[in-house]
């Protein structure tokens, strides 16, 4: 595994109000971060997280809207219940809960996601690579960023 941690960002497509931030996420995301855009955090099936974790993601970030700002009324708070429990549960069997982070963005936030991602990356770098549940066999050809 390379030095820089591999992070997966599940992004609710509405949480970034500022077009500039959205553009940054869409085009200038660092190479070690994979973006998976979903219509709402409520859309995120825990199986997504499982797949990311089992395939060797060192950290998973979910960015969504603040409670009461959800584009789909209750998607984010439903996601909060299910995904928080899932991350607690993964922690129970060997995937640190610090490796899964929810980022709730206020509509008025701007330029926050870049910093939060950097802070998250630093936090994951300090934790080191996640190996406990990374059980999917690495493919020999292709590799990262394929």
């Amino acid at each position, binding site marked *: 595994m390379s030095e820089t941690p591999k992070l997966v960002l599940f992004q609710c497509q509405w949480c970034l109000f500022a077009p500039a931030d959205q553009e940054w996420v869409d085009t200038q995301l660092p190479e070690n971060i994979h973006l998976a855009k979903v219509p709402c955090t409520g859309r995120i099936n*825990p*199986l997504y997280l*499982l*797949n990311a974790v*089992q395939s060797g993601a060192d950290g998973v970030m979910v960015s969504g809207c*603040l*409670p*009461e700002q959800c584009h789909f009324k*209750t998607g984010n*708070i*439903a996601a*909060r*219940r*299910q*995904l*928080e*429990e*899932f991350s*607690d*549960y*993964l*922690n*129970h*069997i*060997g995937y*640190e809960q610090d490796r899964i982070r*929810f980022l*709730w963005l206020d509509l008025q936030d701007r330029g926050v996601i870049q910093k939060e991602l950097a802070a998250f990356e630093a936090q994951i770098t300090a934790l080191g690579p996640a190996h*406990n*549940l990374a*059980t*999917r*066999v690495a493919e020999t050809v292709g590799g990262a960023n394929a």
Partner: protein
Amino acid sequence: MPDIDALKAEAKRILSEGMVDMVIGFKAGDTPLHPQPAFFKTPDEVDQLVYNALCQNNLATYLTRFPKNQKIGMVVRGCESRSVNALVFEGQHPKDGLYLIGVPCEGIIDWRKIVEQTGEEVFSIFEQSNNTVLVESKSGFFTLEKETLLHESCSRCIHPNPISANVVIGELLPEGDPALAREKVAAFASLSMEERHAWFRQEAERCIRCYACREACPMCYCEECFVDHITPRWTESGTTPAGMQGWHIVRAFHQTGRCTSCGACERACPMDIKMTYLTEKLNEDMRRKYNFEVGLDATTPPPFSTVTLDDKSRFVI
């Protein structure tokens, strides 16, 4: 122990009066120590009905296998009655199409523990009134403490009495202490991350993907399980570490807010995988965070089906 004659009489009554089309219960199995589920359709067949501490299946599992318009009578213990409630909530059988004959349950004996303690082939067992079990084996009779033979889930059972049963046969038992389940989860959680993971890996490694746990679980009634799904292939389907771990992680997670801690999955497992330390963690979380226990009635939705703004969550800013 409930009066087996009263149980039979009630089963016969509801069959003969036409209140139900069928009674699900147990009958003696082909091998000793293994009573098997039975489906009695006539009053005469009810004579075969048995009920003892070795009846280890969760009968609610069979509820989903019969048409919804069929009237079903069922012998239920605490956990089974809760499973039935959960299934009624999920619309798997109408409430008025059910007749539940409740029996307070003193716990299910794990036949593996008998074998373990006697160390030899066992022919039969007799429950005695002083909380001991008389075991007949190859070399004679043993008296064992019942307490030591109980299945792990049963030793921590919170609701031994059937809930929302039409009739209860036998005397109600005192409710269990939720602290026991809490302590077990806490004890596991106090281990280090590496120890917890090592334990999980060790358990999952033995899995042979027979899906006996799935078959034994009353809540696993999906037409197509997520592991059988092809696009996308949610988790590896073979006995690779990823596949085995993924299966156990998600199987348990799918029972969040639905599992009654009956332990049927664990008893069904041919590889003796201790699956309940996963489900109990989730059940404990539901109790702690949302004050929710499944199956106490057939109308309260599980936490994942409800949303509220005022969750206390570490994710909230």
